[in-house]
């Protein structure tokens, strides 16, 4: 990995961290497309609990990890929603990058040291270009 790629990755990560850590607090809190469809036919109270009617979401069960510290992009024990979302967003971006880059690094095609995209396949893997 050369330095120019390092700068690009750093800048990209910074954008993702700002989006997830800051901008996310200004996101719409209305149900998304799927959720609104499975809510059709039911009535809800202010806590978003079903109080009547019939809808798909009636059968929805709690998440297996509903009580985990970062459930629903919050922070358990912290009432400040802004802080909870920011911490969850930053953590999520970092974990996703670490897991993704780590996984892809482990399964990557091994070329010669310092290989670039133009390097020939040394291990005989089927080249795609």
């Amino acid at each position, binding site marked *: *990995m050369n330095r120019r*790629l390092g700068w*690009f*990755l750093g800048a*990209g*990560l910074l*954008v*993702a961290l700002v*989006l*997830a850590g800051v901008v*996310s607090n200004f*996101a*719409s*809190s*209305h149900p*998304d*497309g799927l959720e*609104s*469809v*499975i809510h*059709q036919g039911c009535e809800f109270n202010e*806590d*978003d*609990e079903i109080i009547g009617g019939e809808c*798909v979401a*009636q059968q*929805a*069960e709690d*998440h*297996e*990890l*509903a009580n*985990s510290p970062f*459930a*629903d*992009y*919050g922070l358990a024990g912290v009432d400040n929603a802004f802080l909870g979302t920011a911490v969850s*967003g930053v*953590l*999520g*971006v*970092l*974990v*996703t990058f670490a*897991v*993704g*880059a780590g*996984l*892809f*690094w482990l399964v*990557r*095609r091994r*070329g010669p040291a310092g*290989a*670039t*995209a133009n390097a020939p396949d040394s291990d005989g*893997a*089927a080249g*795609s*270009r």
Partner: protein
Amino acid sequence: MSELALHISNGIINGPVSAAFGAVAIVGLAIALARGRADLDDRLAPMAGLVAAFIFAAQMLNFAVLPGVSGHLLGGALAAILVGPWIGAACVATVLVIQALLFADGGITALGLNVTNMALLGTAAGYLLVAALLRVLPRNLTGLGITAFVASVVSVSVAAQGFVLQYLLGGTTDFAGGIGALAVAMAGPHALIGIGEGIIAAATVVTVAKVRPDLVYALRRFRSAPARAQAAVPAGGAA
């Protein structure tokens, strides 16, 4: 009930059908990783990690599409353009697994359903459009932007209908009006979500193509030398 639920939760689709799609997801991802390994060099591996992280961030940004209804990026078309269909599918799946395990978003028993819709169907549909459009549209940033936009709209719509298929096979209640009404109810908002996603995806890939056209998989694949020279011109001119 959760405040920010983005994906299919537990209990909506019955156990056997959820398990069957879990198997579909595992087989699909195994194929994607095996095929994608040929693309995955020292440069694409960290780039794919960044694409996954960016999709995670973008999925937190719900935007309004109708009164009382929001939507967020799914990311299949975006990932397919930036890192290719195979690794792109793995990127979206990585995001979904982390959301389910760390943020209790999208049931764990429903993970196979969500991965099938968004990572497999969404990325595959998006990539088919990309492969077709990049061959016919003008070889410039506008063509790339239009490609990202249209591929995103189709990708989101296909992913949404994936849920309809799953509901037909294993829905735990009856949707008022039947499965046809469910398909229509899903199609409307998700067409609008696709438009929002298309704008985000087009802006993202055009930005990357201006800065580092060599990092855009779809440009390497379908527009090797001439497109790179053209795409590099605005970057040089703007600097």
